[in-house]
């Protein structure tokens, strides 16, 4: 009986845990334990769903027993079960990590709220991923966004407040754009269910209103996923949020937004409309490439490593956009792979920075001289994650770069391959700066001695690092999943 309800439980469990966690109030540790357990439960559900999908294809779940398109339905297929796995997997690693980190960075009074918001954010992200209803997506998007704004504002630096406010304004504009887009679609088709929308849009054919709706949706989602040049909110938000929050949203939130983009382009509008009629790839590819080059270079000049990683994230999103823009199964596979892989590497990198922040109080590169000796495990994790970011073989980064270059060459668009490679090389530079500071500079004499971060931080970090290598060495699972998802997206009308 449970297995039938899994799609609903995937979201409802964290959603219900949130108020419970809030009610626990003063018993902060209990709240943390609750949220950790919930995140594990979510992972378990996601894994179960993945097996179900692998066995029997799509799963549908109608809320309230009302058949779609009248009711809201959840629809799990190969594409979004992958994203579910990412989000819940990352969460199940990050939640255990959060306790120590949060003790250090967030006021005790606000900690119950913190965990509640983390749960809400998790629920929202899972919901966005799993839902099969365009408007429901908007509602869940707002849940995750509002909780994210809150989480970011909990950063200790006062600039966290302005970062959060900026994100709030940009994010709400984005959400409103999406709302307008969904409205136009609804006006034209009379339905909100994604599958149903897709059928009916096919029937309408081209119309200006549809094109306007398309435009609004793309811009709206673009704001959410920090598509260059709509990324301005992101670096500060990631830099000033509490470490665990940076790690969590960097690894999940933008991924979910990319997923939504893919969902709209391929499932709802259909690739024929998106690419043959709207030529969206002529937007995505240049934007992606500029993002790769420009933000990578900006990243090189950052002094705060968290902000550096944030810029790097924008660049990585550029890769994903390029992958979509290549309009081929291989390109889409590369995007989806990178979706998964980037979550792993950025998660590991941000977590290791969280551990640095735990000991040093900040993540400025100037303060990190020589800490490689004092925090060998932490910095080892950073180096390992950095290698993955660069795309050294045996890491996940290599796999996604490989596919992306392959897709570009398949099309014969070798300049894209060149820029992708160039991006990797710039990544070498910015990762190298940290390595050099941490290992090759001497620790200044007057500075405080730091010791290795506690195991509660290190273990989750290393789990992610090892995942980077596991999925880099044996990529058959991820590639199998993503390529068949990509084929389905292209194959199904």
């Amino acid at each position, binding site marked *: 009986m449970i297995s039938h309800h899994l799609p609903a439980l995937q979201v409802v469990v964290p959603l219900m845990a949130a108020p419970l966690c809030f009610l626990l109030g003063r018993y902060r540790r209990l709240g943390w334990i609750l949220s950790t357990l919930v995140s594990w439960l979510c992972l378990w559900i996601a894994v179960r769903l993945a097996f179900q999908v692998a066995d029997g294809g799509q799963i549908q779940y109608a809320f309230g027993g009302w058949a779609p398109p009248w009711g809201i339905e959840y629809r799990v297929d190969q594409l979004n079960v992958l994203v579910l796995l990412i989000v819940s997997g990352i969460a199940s690693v990050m939640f255990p990590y959060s306790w120590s980190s949060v003790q250090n960075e967030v006021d005790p009074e606000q900690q119950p709220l913190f965990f509640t918001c983390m749960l809400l954010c998790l629920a929202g992200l899972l919901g966005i991923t799993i839902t099969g209803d365009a*408007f429901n997506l*908007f*509602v869940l998007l*707002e849940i995750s966004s*509002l909780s994210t*704004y*809150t989480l970011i*504002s909990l950063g200790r630096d*006062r*600039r966290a*407040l*302005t970062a*959060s*406010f900026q994100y*709030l*304004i940009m994010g*709400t*504009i984005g*959400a*409103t754009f999406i*709302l*307008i887009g969904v*409205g136009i679609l*609804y*006006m034209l088709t009379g339905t*909100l269910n994604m599958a149903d929308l897709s059928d009916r849009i096919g029937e309408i054919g081209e119309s200006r209103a549809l094109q306007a709706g398309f435009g609004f949706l793309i811009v709206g989602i673009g704001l959410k996923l920090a598509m260059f040049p709509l990324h301005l909110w992101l670096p500060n938000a990631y830099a000033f949020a509490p470490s665990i929050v940076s790690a969590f949203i960097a690894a999940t939130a933008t991924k979910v937004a990319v997923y939504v983009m893919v969902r709209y382009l391929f499932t709802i509008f259909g690739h024929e409309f998106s690419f043959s009629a709207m030529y969206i790839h002529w937007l995505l590819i240049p934007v992606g490439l500029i993002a790769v080059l420009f933000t990578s270079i900006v990243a090189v000049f950052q*002094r*705060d490593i968290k902000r550096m990683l944030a810029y790097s994230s924008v660049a990585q999103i550029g890769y994903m956009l390029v992958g979509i823009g290549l309009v081929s199964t291989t390109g889409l596979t590369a995007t989806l792979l990178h979706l998964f892989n980037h979550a792993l590497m950025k998660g590991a990198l941000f977590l290791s920075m969280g551990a640095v922040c735990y000991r040093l109080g900040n993540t*400025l590169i100037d303060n990190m001289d020589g800490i490689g000796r004092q925090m060998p495990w932490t910095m080892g994790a950073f180096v390992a994650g950095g290698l993955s970011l660069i795309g050294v073989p045996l890491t996940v980064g290599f796999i996604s770069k490989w596919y992306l270059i392959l897709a570009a060459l398949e099309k014969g668009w070798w300049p894209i391959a060149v820029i992708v490679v160039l991006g990797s090389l710039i990544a070498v530079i910015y990762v190298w700066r940290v390595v050099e500071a941490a290992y090759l500079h001497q620790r200044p004499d007057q500075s405080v001695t730091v010791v290795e971060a506690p195991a509660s931080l290190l273990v989750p970090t290393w789990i992610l690092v090892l995942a980077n290598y596991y999925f880099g060495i044996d990529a058959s699972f991820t590639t199998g999943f993503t390529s068949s998802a990509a084929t389905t997206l292209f194959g199904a009308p």
Partner: protein
Amino acid sequence: MNAFSLFNYWIVIILMMAGFYTVIASGNLVKKIVGLNIFQTSVFIMYISMGKVIGGTAPIVTVNSELYSNPLPHVLILTAIVVAVATTALGLSLVIRIKEAYHSIEEDDILAISQREDEAE
């Protein structure tokens, strides 16, 4: 007929753009929020307009009516209004905190202070 039928949407668009303009052009944080609200409210009007059926009545079943307006947009907008007020509340509380931290709610001032802090790092 056609020109009139679209007139409603056009007004909505003008409102939307007024709100949108306020959001991005205004330097005052409170005013940005006000703009955001106007922007969203105008989107609500758009939704409700599309739900209207000429000659229909409010979607509550009564004996003497056959034609009802479309209830679905109403539901969506009810939800959206709530979302909007939630966002507003959060945004305003951020404004209050920013005021406490920076003693200003003008974007330019805050930017200047932040920049100085960035450089001081």
